[in-house]
């Protein structure tokens, strides 16, 4: 890596160190950290929210049990799913369709609807070829906001499970959803979109601008340059850890991510809210040491994976080195493995983005992950298989790490001779049942589909050999973690993939959220056990190591055989 790469990474860290605590404090206050019941921005946002509650006929004071909370979320997701599906099916005859896009086929519309409702943003399609501006704005962008808001609501409910005692209720889903969107996502997106526009990210309602090429000898005389309300969608794509690009090339496209500055800002945007949620957690449970530990674990894993990918990509392809090709950094070239990369970001800039996007379940990309070296590709793949907890998607990432912390506490707690406790709540059979269900969800959303895909001839649309297995594994790892990025060689619009990946995304989203809410409900009812020196301390470096160990071992043991035949074999074959 060059010193510029290092400086870029350090500036990013510095920006996060400043912004994360500030935003975290704000988020905590939005979700009720203040004792007097007020929240920041009551005067500005209060009336807006009150209007929404009136229209939706929601009583904001009514608390919900976990099951009611979960039902509300499921109902909301179902309605969103149907609305987005219908919109795609009808886009051909609806307004704001300057490029005359046809309606989307049923299975593909299903896949995309699931993808955006589950905050995955897996895209079988090219935005500029398949979607009308109306679908992008009213369908995809809206889901970018509300699916992120729903994920944030869920972790807030789980946190209430920890903070409340002897209670059956976890809060009100509609209030949490509305507040998250109105007070956090919309204001931040507004600011970020303006920043992006200043850097040249497009924001218009144009169809194609036709440009005449200078050199007609290539056989191409005119070029279609796509327009669209892009900056507004780009902002929430990153802030809400969604990742669905307006254009097919996603954040590699110059209209989405024009330069090195926007690249850094985009990485900053996708890490901001997930990390800030951990700070908010510390304030809500009134244990900032615990929050610091979780941030440390998240950041540690993120740095290792990002750094690994950056190094692997910067080192380039050993096959080319053997042929005497110069892949080093110099004033002449950015060096490294440059297949599928934008020169303006370089190999390391791609590696950093890849680490951040797979750690946050965002799935936006600024280069072709499929073109990574085997090890460079292994890192983001394994990063997703860790369960998207470093720092994970908005809200749900923290939720995942908390569930894994419960698992760690259970094993470690037994080792110190007490019924395990986390933040004063006993972890017993009912919680372990739910933790186990949670942990089973991701492997079940990944491995059976991947295994079936390599056996079914009609699904065989990937490259031969171990790299093909990597593609299949990566893509299902992406859907099974609601990430959305892809090893994109694989043809994904087929019947098999639209259906199985749709199922995989649904399983990944709801088979984790429902057990997590149930855990919250179970914890809320429990009394708080006072902390003594016999209590397992969960804020020490030792516990952090143990938590990382559990994450590594659970993922490693589940996926090692498959990875051995995919990226590891590919690397060893180089």
């Amino acid at each position, binding site marked *: 890596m060059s010193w510029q790469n290092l400086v870029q990474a350090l500036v990013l860290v510095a920006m996060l160190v400043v912004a994360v605590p500030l935003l975290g404090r704000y988020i905590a206050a939005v979700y009720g950290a203040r004792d007097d019941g007020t929240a920041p921005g009551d005067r500005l946002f209060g009336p807006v929210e009150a209007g929404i509650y009136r229209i939706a006929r929601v009583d904001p004071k009514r608390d919900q049990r976990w099951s009611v909370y979960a039902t509300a979320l499921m109902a909301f997701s179902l309605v969103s799913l149907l609305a987005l599906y219908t919109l795609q099916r009808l886009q051909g005859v609806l307004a704001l369709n300057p490029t005359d896009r046809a309606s989307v086929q049923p299975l593909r519309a299903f896949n995309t609807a699931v993808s955006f409702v589950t905050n995955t943003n897996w895209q079988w399609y090219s935005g500029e070829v398949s979607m009308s501006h109306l679908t992008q704005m009213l369908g995809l962008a809206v889901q970018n906001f509300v699916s992120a808001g729903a994920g944030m609501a869920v972790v807030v409910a789980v946190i209430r499970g920890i903070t409340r005692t002897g209670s059956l209720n976890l809060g009100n889903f509609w209030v949490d959803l509305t507040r998250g969107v109105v007070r956090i996502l919309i204001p931040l997106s507004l600011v970020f979109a303006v920043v992006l526009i200043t850097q040249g990210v497009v924001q218009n309602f144009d169809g194609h601008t036709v440009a005449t090429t200078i050199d007609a000898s290539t056989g191409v005389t005119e070029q279609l340059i796509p327009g669209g309300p892009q900056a507004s969608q780009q902002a929430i794509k990153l802030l809400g850890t969604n990742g669905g690009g307006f254009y097919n090339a996603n954040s590699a496209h110059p209209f989405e991510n024009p330069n090195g500055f926007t690249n850094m800002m985009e990485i900053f945007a996708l890490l901001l809210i997930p990390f800030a949620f951990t700070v908010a957690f510390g304030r809500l449970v009134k244990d900032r040491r615990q929050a610091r530990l979780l941030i440390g674990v998240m950041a540690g894993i993120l740095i290792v994976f990002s750094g690994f990918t950056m190094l692997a990509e910067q080192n380039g392809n050993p096959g080319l080195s053997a042929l005497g090709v110069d892949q080093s950094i110099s004033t002449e070239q950015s060096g490294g493995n440059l297949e599928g990369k934008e020169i303006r970001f370089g190999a390391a800039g791609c590696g950093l983005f890849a680490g951040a996007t797979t750690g946050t379940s965002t799935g936006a990309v600024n280069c072709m992950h499929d073109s990574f070296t085997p090890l460079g590709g292994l890192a983001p793949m394994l990063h997703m298989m860790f369960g998207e907890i470093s720092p994970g998607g908005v809200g749900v990432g923290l939720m995942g790490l908390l569930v894994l912390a419960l698992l760690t506490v259970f094993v470690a707690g037994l*080792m110190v001779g007490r019924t395990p406790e986390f933040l004063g709540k006993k972890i017993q059979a009912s919680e*372990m049942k739910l933790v186990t269900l949670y942990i089973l969800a991701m492997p079940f959303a990944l*491995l*059976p589909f991947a295994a079936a895909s390599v056996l079914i001839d009609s699904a065989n649309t990937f490259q031969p050999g171990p790299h093909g297995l990597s593609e299949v594994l990566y893509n299902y790892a992406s859907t099974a973690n609601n990430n959305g990025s892809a090893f994109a060689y694989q043809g994904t619009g087929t019947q098999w993939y639209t259906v199985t990946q749709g199922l995989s995304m649904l399983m990944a989203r709801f088979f984790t959220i429902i057990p997590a809410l149930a855990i919250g409900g179970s914890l809320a009812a429990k009394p708080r056990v006072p902390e003594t020196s*016999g209590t397992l301390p969960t804020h020490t470096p030792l516990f952090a190591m143990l938590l990382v160990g559990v994450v590594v071992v659970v993922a490693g*043991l589940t996926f090692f*055989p498959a990875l051995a035949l995919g990226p590891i074999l590919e690397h060893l074959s180089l």
Partner: protein
Amino acid sequence: MTTPISTSAIAIGPITSGTIDPQRPPKVRLRASGTTSIFDPKIIRSASLDALRKLNPAVMAKNPVMLIVELGSVVTTLLFIRDFGDSNAQTNAFSGLIAAFLWFTVLFANFAEAMAEGRGKAQAAALRQTRADTVAKVRTADGSIEERPSSSLDIGDLCVVVAGEVIPGDGDIVEGIALVDESAITGESAPVIRESGGDRSAVTGGTRVLSDEIVVRITARPGETFLDRMIALVEGSQRQKTPNEIALSILLSGLTIIFVLAVMTLQPFAIYSGAEQPILVLIALLVCLIPTTIGGLLSAIGIAGMDRLVQRNVLAMSGRAVEAAGDVTTLLLDKTGTITFGSRQAAEFIPVTNTTATEVAESALASSLADETPEGRSIVELAVRDFGHAVTDDPGSVMVPFTAQTRMSGMDLTNGRLVRKGAADSIRQFVIAEGGQVPLELGPIVDQVSREGATPLVVIDLQPGASWRVMGVVRLKDTVKPGMRERFDELRAMGIRTVMITGDNPFTAAAIAAEAGVDDFLAEATPEHKMALIRREQAGGNLVAMTGDGTNDAPALAQADVGVAMNTGTQAAKEAGNMVDLDSNPTKLIEIVAVGKQLLMTRGSLTTFSIANDVAKYFAIIPAMFSGVLPELESLNVMRLDSPRSAILSAVIFNALIIIGLVPLALKGVKFRAEAASSVLRRNLLMYGLGGVVVPFAAIKIIDVIVSTLGVS
């Protein structure tokens, strides 16, 4: 516990008389003697047979992890038989050995459980002899005696038991008083007094009356007596999984499901990669990955935990109570008998204006020469030790005993000298009535002594011809048992708060509490106060443990999370608590907590070890599975194992042997030290986490060297 004739793990006491009395039950002690171990050859023999019996799938179904191993064993055996004719000797040896060691894995797990049950079963068998049918003499309504077998007794029957007979069932004495030999239950050879009325009226069926005649009203139906419950408990026949054990089983099942998924989906990936695997190898991989070590030892750990309590002569009514003991955060300890010796000891002789300490000592000594109470003896001891006074033999002297009227005691010596000691106010009244002088400073001295938590005794002396003279004050102090402060420090380190319960006034209580080093105390405690304290602690999220014996302790015993009833206590107390201490030693509460913690620690440590082992197993098996077709993966063979077959076989052998290797640890429990949770975690993590990663690498390599040297694969 001495002189057992060790025929098995049970110590059978010596039979004192020359002839064997069929009425006299064999003396059985729960506590094993020092010479018998859990690894008694007899237990090992019967456990080996039990291990085979437990192969019954209906029994195995209780343990899903091991059920999968058994299924794997059956399938590999069938595959071995099917392919036997078509394969070469090498292949047959490999398949045969894999199948055999999978069976061993199951058998070793069963053996561990059977070993854990072994000692309890032997104890239960010995207790059953005690229960052998006796003849009950039931007094009928008209007063006549009807002889009936004890098995046909009913609640409310009145049974007459005379010296030399065995009490036919549990009950309360309604008439008479008797010496009862309860060694059959408690192992304690000294007989105890049982009498009608009060807290000592309960008798247990199977114990033997040594003197007098009593009438017992039966309170438990045959089959539901204390002895019956005891047999069921030590045998573990009614053992239910404890809450933490259930939670852990769920996690282990979850891990097993993940590994089944990982192995099942590996075959498609392998087929895609052109390296389809034999079913036998996939089963071997699966068995190595699923947590067989902890799965195989889990129930043994639970049974052994209960057994460790039984070895301490404590009967836990449920495993749940044992686990709760590990979670206890507040320990209520009675002052008298638990923290202190319960007898007051002379600590100091305090003179008044016109006397000296040595004069006080001399008078006090003289007043206590014939005093056989612990207080009196301690006065003599202190006067002799600290002041060099001699105990003189005065055969003509007369002892004046303590009475409720005078509230003083003393001696009338031959030379006419009279000495008395007693409570301050009664002495004061007596001296004034006799026309003597009470020095002004006596009042403040007495008050000061009381305030410090001690008891003042005033000593007065009457020389012939003189008037009564107040000599001074003896400070009597309840003595804290040695080592209590250290134990409380240990408890504090483990995060357990101790609260001393006493009927003393707050001054006395505070002084003793400070000396003993307890965290808090409850003075002038009544059963209601105790109950309120427990409720308050529990409302704050604490788990409370206490001991008790009286009927008025019963509600508190029931309310406490861990209530240990003394065996000497009333039936009501025993019913209310969830443990009974047969030794009636309240200090044992501390040991019970340790046993509870150790039980959980053993489970957690072996779970960590079991999962950590999988890392090495992967590095043994994955390269072995694929390096034939995909030679690049040979570089994952970091242990440089000899051949694919020897690698797989070594992992399977290790997986089986580690279970048997860990049986002693499972039965004895991991090393327990009273430390803060953080240091316990650090040590256990290093030992069982890191150890769990490293040990199998070394062990599999060694097994591989042996296997490849023997050329079996």
